[in-house]
């Protein structure tokens, strides 16, 4: 399935989720913890937001179900990145890198800042 928003930016929660899944297949709580680590504790995804984004990423074909387990009588579902998801994450990472490079260069030209 073609991504619905291939030309739009992902948004930070979706970017963090794809980045988390780029390491290995993960379940919901695992993604929340990993997103926190990736963002140096700045972003704490909540379950409502997480599953809204997962639902969208699934319907866009960027992630898929890897496996399901039953833990303490409850379903635990693991998700993995699809090839389309990996491509989309690469495009987004490049876009962010480009923007960050431009910002850093301009701050340096300004004479100080974070450069």
């Amino acid at each position, binding site marked *: 399935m073609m991504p619905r928003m291939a030309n739009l930016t992902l948004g930070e929660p979706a970017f963090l989720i794809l980045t988390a899944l780029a390491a290995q297949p993960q379940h919901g*709580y695992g993604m929340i913890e990993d997103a926190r680590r990736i963002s140096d504790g700045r972003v704490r995804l*909540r379950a*409502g937001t997480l599953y*809204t984004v997962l639902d969208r990423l699934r319907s866009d074909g960027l992630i898929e179900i890897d496996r399901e387990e039953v833990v303490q009588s*409850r379903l*635990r579902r693991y998700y993995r990145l699809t090839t389309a998801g990996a491509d989309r994450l690469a495009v987004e990472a490049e876009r962010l890198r480009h923007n960050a490079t431009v910002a850093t260069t301009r701050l340096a030209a300004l004479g100080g800042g974070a450069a």
Partner: protein
Amino acid sequence: MSADLEARYRRMLRWYPWEHRRAYEEEMLDTLLAGARPGQRRPGPVDTVDLLLSAARHRVGLTARGLATAEWRDAAAATGVLGALLLVGLRLATAGRGYHLGGPAPEQWLRLLPWVLVAVAAATGLRWVAAGVAWLAVAGETALLVTRYSDAPTSAVFTLWAFTLAVVTAVALTVPAPPRHGVAVLGVRRVALVTAGVLVAQLGSVAAAVVGGYGHLADGRVVVGPYFRPIDTASYLAGGLLIVLASWRLAPPLRLRIIVLLAPVAATLATAEYGFDGWRDSYVRIGYVPLAAAQWAILALIPILAFALGVVLIRRHEQRTRLLALGRTADRVTQVS
């Protein structure tokens, strides 16, 4: 983790539409409980707000996606044709009564003409012409409504339902659909029956004015003769019967959706009749009392809420029907095995 917390999270997850719960409820519960602090018994405020907003977003999204289905497109096309026919009948009756009273004002013919064009264009497949003329007519009706509110405010408020019908018709005709889709969905015979019903009701009402006696006194008060009401009522009943006959064999999903699309019109009429009769009385007794902002808000919001409620009720009804059918099938399979 406590059973209390799990039960509370389960209750909160019921805020989500079934389509989302079916796919994610159990794993969301697992994720929420995995993130709980030791000894936690109640969901935290941040999680509560997040779940509430996310559930609301899913419900709105689901409703919006539900409106983009072929069933709603068919209903919109049919409502566009029906609305145009009703407006032709309505404006024809107004002009006819005006003729009886010594020649209708030019504005009455001007109000009839666009809806005739809309009905003809919609029936012959010129959907964009129909939609364009309908929106022009709505713009004209808006200007007339503003003028009328300053001249005769109660009349403007109590005929607001006709304006709502014009807006609903214009919106329905704007929904993309193949040419002549409204007539195709309804069937030529049904459109002919509705047209006959509208003409019988409205021209019967004009006949009631001519035969039964209907006029204005010099001070503007309306006087009616003894035969006016019986003829007027009989013509509306006969016209209504033809329209009911026309909708009798309509497929239930289409009929329900047409009713919901026309619900704002009924809601506007009911709001004026039952919510503003006191305001009309005070107008008669003490003169002009302008409507407050809250009253305008009520007149604007109730029709929209009526439509939204109708959409939700249809979705629930159809979901319940589908689940019942699935349950019966499962029950049959269990009996057989």
